[in-house]
């Protein structure tokens, strides 16, 4: 399993991936720089302890810097997870409405800058964010 995940991270173009629980959206595993995809918006309010709570990691000493960074990462992951999760439920709602026997299998969300590949399984879901080939 670790091997598969490691290989996934090493794939060219893969920026980040995260695994969520399908039922409640809890983050199970993440990898990569999620903050670069979408910086945590609520970091200022959640990070009460650090004074320079902006996502720029240049301010502050090294130790706090690291902490802010990891905090930012987890926050960014959680925020992104909730966005993905709500997107997925609305997509699921659409499919359910069209045919309740049907089931969502794969979502590829292509944007100008990157692509989200979402594999929803009954219990968990995997989101991979990768660079699209230069076009």
């Amino acid at each position, binding site marked *: *399993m670790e091997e598969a995940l490691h*290989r996934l991270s090493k794939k060219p173009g893969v920026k980040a991936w995260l695994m969520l*629980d399908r039922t409640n959206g*809890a983050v199970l595993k993440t990898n990569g720089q999620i903050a670069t995809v979408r910086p945590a918006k609520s970091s200022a309010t959640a990070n009460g302890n650090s004074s320079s709570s902006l996502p720029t990691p240049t301010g502050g000493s090294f130790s706090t810097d690291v902490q802010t960074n990891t905090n930012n990462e987890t926050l960014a992951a959680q925020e992104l997870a*909730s966005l993905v999760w709500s997107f997925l*439920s609305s997509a699921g709602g659409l499919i359910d409405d069209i045919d309740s026997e049907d089931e969502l299998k794969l979502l590829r969300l292509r944007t100008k800058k990157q692509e989200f590949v979402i594999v929803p399984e009954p219990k968990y879901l*995997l989101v*991979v964010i990768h660079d699209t080939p230069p*076009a």
Partner: protein
Amino acid sequence: MQQRRDEILAKKAKLAELKRQRELRATQTNAGRLAAPTSGQKNDRKREIEDMIERLVGDSRPSSIAGAMSPGRRGSRPNSVLSGGELSAAENSEYTSPTNAHPGLAVPAQPQVLTTVPLQTIFECPPSPVKETFSYSKGVQTTDDWTPPASARPRAISELDDDDLNAPTSTPSKRMSRWGRGREEELRQNIRNEIEEELKAARDLVADGVLQSSSVAASNFPARALTSEELAAVTASDEFVDFVERSTKVIERALDMGNEYDILTDYSLQAHDIEDEDEQAGNTGGKGRRRVKEIVQFYDDRWSKKRMISSLDFSPKYPELVLASYTKNPSAPHDPDGIIQVWNQHLHDRPEFLFHAQSDILAAKFSPFHPNLIIGGTYSGQVLLWDTRAKTAPVQKTPLTGSGHSHPVYSVDIVGTQNANNIISVSTDGALCVWSVDMLSQPQESLTLTTPPPNKFEDLAPTTMAFPQADPTYFLVGSEEGPIYPCHRYDRAGAKAGVDSRVSYKGHAAPVVSVDFHPARGPVDLGDLILSSSLDWSVKLWKVRAPAATSTIVESAGTAIPPLLEFVREDVVYDAKWSPVRPGVFALVDGAGSLELWDITVETEIPVAKISPTPGKGGRQLLSKSLNKVAWETTDGKRLATGGIDAVVSLFEVGPDLGGKEAVRNDEWTSVKKLVARLEAISAGVIGVA
């Protein structure tokens, strides 16, 4: 369907019971009214009743008054109570008419008076079967689904749709009068309208629900972050591991395919960026229409390392899948000795499936009759069966002792038809076993192959076996000594089961490593042509005698038939295979690590194309270039796989003159036939002279 019919019947029964009771009550009230002739009393009582009804009706459903006014026009709302009420209203208008006719009771709103009364008695009535058709019973059926909590919402919608669709079939229109039909149409229209309304409402509800839940999710997000123990528990579960396995596979396929072609490419933009796809790009061999191009190479760091490829086969069902069997990795004693990896052309970095065996796998192939099954033969003498729906271990294996093989099995095959096929395996001690796919615990048939009389030793060491397309009872075995022997599975006229002692194909001076029958699917029958490769640095073309013909020819035992044609190479030839679609094309791989493509309709002295796989990533050692096996993709014959000592599976695609069904011309078949006739004449002449 039966259940539904029962429901309808029960409901009908209920209705009939209702009707009866109402009739009874109507007569009773009439009697009561007659007994109390004072109009004032009557009015009081009427007002009372009206009040009560107002209350009842107002509480339950305000619009039911309007509904009661025109019971036939209104579509029944999908709610049993209300539609029951309406139903009774429709009936009531008839039964109450005598009451209306009574002097001093002329009130226009009279019909609604009794509408709700039957509500109280509905469930008291025991069902009694009465045959009557009410189209609005459809509305009644959905009741149960509309009352339960929101979780069942989508189901209810689908059931409503079903009802709408099934409406024409569930009401026997034959029994309906024309009026009834018109009415039914009307009802159906009404129902449809209502369904639409309901759907809209449901959709709103769903949307609301989603909004709510998502906002809840967003607001509760940090609170639901799992603790590290919970995380560990989840990530350690089998379910999660399975999920990771499946989902990463899907993602990798998605990414690998995305790299091959970008579906959003805009050709009107940036024309200069498009890569020059000229013939020199990538690893190619041959020229023009006889080009060979390497598409992809498969190698897994964990499993392919330090192993050798012992066989290759394309899936007959899924042309993008190719299996490779491997021998053991001497530096990893704890890993299984033999493995099979099934590679997918669209999944580059990992195998689609991985299968294990206790011993080195020497031969493996997909079952041509079942896309999920893979058979293999091992060094220990076992014949194994894997299933792609199961895990990595074989689902069935033959025993090592007793009736099975006790020597290495270098050749396995499945022959027969879709409904009756058998696994055939041959081991180097000359034992041939026939197995049923369903039962590998003991062979169905077994046969010992021995060298025919003129030889000094009886022992025959078959290294390879080949069945013709048409006949599952006749086959050729290539031996370690060099000759190729025809064999019969059963006794037939003039020949006993086993090696046919009258004929042998002698020409190779070293062990024969492959024998391949011409796949012959064309206007000319070339099924008697075989190609053999040997460690004596040559490939030979033979024409085999038909098994039936051998019995008629009266010849002394041990007639040796020479080859028609020899292709002498510069190194040992490990494998040679006919193209599945081109009559004159075959591919061979040699110990120098090159793949050669030949077309005997064009040239019999030199290959028409030659290519070597790109050297492996890990830097090759000496002598690791050698290629062991080659396999054609059988459905359109455009792709080839090669594999060898360095455990890299390389996939090649050939140009339109070497593969692909579209460009096959009929004259290719005839020219192969002519060539064979010419060669036969020459060899006959040579023999005649000698």
